[in-house]
């Protein structure tokens, strides 16, 4: 009898998957429940955070509302403040299948059906008394820390929060966009000046504490350790079979690093423990764990671009693991930082490394650089296919994704597919449409493997690849596709 490891805590709140879904690769039958230590640690960490938030008024801890991409966790920790991430609240409401009403309430208030549903879910939450997804009232912000990376809508979101919380100070950190695929000294200087001139003084003012560079350095050291572990963790999915799913389970694994714990000792302990557990699975050649137990066989390996849908998260995941599909790399797990290529926070360059971290999050990558990164994932992680989950709410991700897909298909000949859903708007999840598309895609990958076996996709030499997407690249990059489709 195989043992079943409990799914991540947030999955427990998701609705049951449709019962009549055929299982091909098949998950194991449920058996004894064993919680791995990392899961207990994460549960404890998040529980402590929410408890601290609900008692913030009594304990006098100051509360910072901020965002995941480009978050300044180490700085927040250095001031002993508590973070609230509105987009994490929204996604948790989505997973509890309660975001729909909040979105409708925001629309009644005047927000268009067209705009970001994270924003509307958050506004709806405010309109309903700011009760958080755990059922407890969230404290109002003492500081709005508008540190945002790669999403213009974040700026608009916080302008809305400024109106909802009048008088609350706002610290603004504008992150320059790495449009040319590089971070220049001017960009770094612009950010460090903002930290010095606006962000840190506001944090001092709100917290009532003087900025302590040694304390920040301590948290940056801890962040570096966590980042080492998380980079090693996601490197394990290069193994065949992959010991974890780097998208559906990956969003769980990035939880602590994205929720304010990156520079904390608890995060180091968590990621060390998690790595040990996953490495042990990898050493035994075990495939990933799903909400229904251990996957029997990894049949296909995918790279996925775009955030997941949260309102139907478990049904969505089931569409993959029922067919033995494992996501081995995803861009979404890089929104809170990209550590695969060696970036680490550095205590010796505190503000500069905070700036470089912000500019290095995935959403701050230019479109050509995103294509390069995904191409590298497909090759290095030995993927059989590439999938885009295009999110209606998220123009930062979605605008240009069809070009990404065409480019990758053109460069690698990799099977590609495209589905659409939304972050937390249940009205925009069509199970049947997504299933039909995925079934066709999986069949396409299956046929390809039957005909030719697993053929690794080859990438051009890096210098050639960069020429194709860089300034000096040729417009021919795109032309064959258009010509093939009779568009030119």
């Amino acid at each position, binding site marked *: 009898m195989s043992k079943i490891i409990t799914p991540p805590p947030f999955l427990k709140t998701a609705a049951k998957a449709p019962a009549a879904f055929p299982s091909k690769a098949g998950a194991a039958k449920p058996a004894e429940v064993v919680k791995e230590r990392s899961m207990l640690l994460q549960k404890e960490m998040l529980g402590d955070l929410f408890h601290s938030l609900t008692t913030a008024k009594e304990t006098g801890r100051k509360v910072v509302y901020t965002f995941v991409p480009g978050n300044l966790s180490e700085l927040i920790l250095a001031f002993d403040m508590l973070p609230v991430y509105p987009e994490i609240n929204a996604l948790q409401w989505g997973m509890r299948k309660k975001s729909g009403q909040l979105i409708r309430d925001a629309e009644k*208030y005047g927000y268009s059906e067209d705009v970001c549903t994270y924003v509307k879910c958050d506004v709806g939450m405010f309109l309903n008394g700011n009760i958080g997804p755990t059922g407890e009232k969230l404290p109002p912000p003492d500081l709005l820390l508008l540190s945002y990376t790669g999403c213009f809508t974040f700026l608009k979101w916080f302008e809305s929060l400024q109106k909802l919380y009048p008088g609350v100070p706002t610290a603004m950190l504008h992150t320059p966009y790495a*449009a040319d695929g590089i971070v220049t000294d001017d960009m770094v200087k612009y950010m460090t000046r903002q930290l010095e001139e606006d962000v840190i003084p506001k944090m001092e003012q709100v917290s009532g504490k003087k900025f302590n560079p040694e304390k920040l350095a301590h948290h940056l050291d801890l962040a570096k350790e966590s980042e080492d572990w998380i980079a090693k963790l996601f490197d394990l999915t290069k193994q065949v079979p992959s010991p974890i799913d780097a998208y559906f389970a990956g969003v769980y694994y990035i939880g602590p690093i994205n929720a304010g714990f990156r520079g904390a000792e608890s995060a180091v302990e968590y990621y060390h423990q998690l790595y040990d557990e996953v490495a042990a699975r990898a050493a035994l050649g075990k495939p990933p764990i799903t909400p229904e137990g251990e996957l029997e066989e990894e049949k296909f390996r995918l790279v996925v671009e775009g955030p997941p849908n949260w309102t139907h998260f478990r049904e969505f995941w089931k569409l993959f693991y029922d067919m033995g599909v494992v996501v081995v790399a995803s861009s979404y797990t890089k929104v809170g930082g990209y550590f695969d290529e060696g970036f680490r926070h550095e205590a010796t360059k505190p503000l500069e490394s905070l700036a470089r971290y912000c500019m290095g999050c995935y959403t701050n990558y230019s479109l050509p650089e995103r294509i390069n990164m995904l191409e590298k994932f497909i090759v290095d992680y030995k993927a059989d296919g590439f999938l885009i989950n295009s999110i209606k709410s998220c123009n930062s991700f979605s605008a*240009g994704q069809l070009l990404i897909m065409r480019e990758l298909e053109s460069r690698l000949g990799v099977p590609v597919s495209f589905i659409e859903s939304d972050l937390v708007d249940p009205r925009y999840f069509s199970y049947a449409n997504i299933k039909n598309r995925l079934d066709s895609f999986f069949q396409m990958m299956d046929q390809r493997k039957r005909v030719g076996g697993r053929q690794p996709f080859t990438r051009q030499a890096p210098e050639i690849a960069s020429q194709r997407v860089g300034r000096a690249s040729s417009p021919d990059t795109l032309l064959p596709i258009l010509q093939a489709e009779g*568009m030119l």
Partner: protein
Amino acid sequence: MQQTLEALISKCEHLAFDLQFTHAKNWKRDGSMDDRSPAAHRFLVGYLPIYIPREIIHAMGGLPVGIMGSGDRMQIIKGDAYYQSYICHLPRGVVELALSGALSEFDAFIFPSICDVVRNLSGMFQIFKADAFIKYLDLPQNFLSEVGGAYYRREMETVIEGIQAHLSLAPIPEDLWRERLNHSIRLYNENRALIERIVTLRQEFPWRLSAVDWYCILRSGITMPVEEHNNILYEVEGMLQEERGRPLDNIRVVISGAFCEQPPLGLIKTIELAGCYIVDDDFMLGSRWIEGNIEENTADPMAAIVEAYLQHSTFSASLYEAAPASGTKVERLAELVRRRKADGVVFAAASFCDPALLDRPELQNGLERAGLRTIGFQYSENTGQFKVIKEEVGAFSDSIKLWDAVPEAGGIGDAASSQLVQVWLPTVLDEIDIVA
């Protein structure tokens, strides 16, 4: 030779909507005919909405050309293949222009930082238009001179250096550059001043020049050298001194939210025919971005442009509202409504335009709290059905006319229009369905 206003408007409409940018291309070719002339190195820089500092392109000897999408004047085939249904329409038209060859003679493209869609479009252009210099212009959202200002200056220098490198142009000597940039600043100051004078004239006498005609005149300015546009504006200003047309019993509205993807002419016409004088708007906002003059004849004209952006930008959904000394967006819009003696605000935003639509609830609720009337709808640049909008705006107009018992001085109710109110209803009913 003096031409009639009608002829001038016709010419401007043709220039404004020429999606081959023939006028700009001819300007460039004219400069290339004699390679010994100072104009030998003319170049074209396409820019996306909303604002770029056109002065620096002009001072370098180039022509900044606004690319506002393809409106309802081009069938989108290739552009749609690159965008999901929930992305606004503007980038589809821009991609269509790029892939159809309409932008073939452009040397550079600038994408100002206004939203995620235009941002990502800059990356797409790096692939589509690899033969051109592509610049994402990251306009600062920090408004301290030594922080955001320093960064913005470096961004502008990057534009200059990038174009020079791409076209193998020699750097301009410092003294000459200062002289040329000050000259360009003067010309664009003149352009903005003329625009503001005409807007003020239209505020007083909106019947003398329709909003549609004014829009064509204004939009034509992004397709031609500023000197040429200034001449046109002088002519228009002169012609508007004389009475023409006749006042109608229209309400006076300000349009807000249409700063990027431009509404089709038919939509502007529909608003007018629904009983509204459009006395101010944010169409073609980039041409009016800096309020007032950029300081002229300074020793450091780049610094003058930077300071003007930091201190004298208009309010916009794409600009962070950082405790502005000049007031919040709600306050500034309300002030504009009062200054233009408008009766209400029509919020017209492109579908799926996150910046405009995310601003709308606060603006709309804020104005209504201030006792100002508003209505809102969405459109796309190729909207072809206006009937619903006409009915909505018409009802808005009617409600103001009907229920404003004591019209404010200078608003709808001067003596003449008050009399007209009594005969308004059947007239409006007769007019319904004029616009298809």
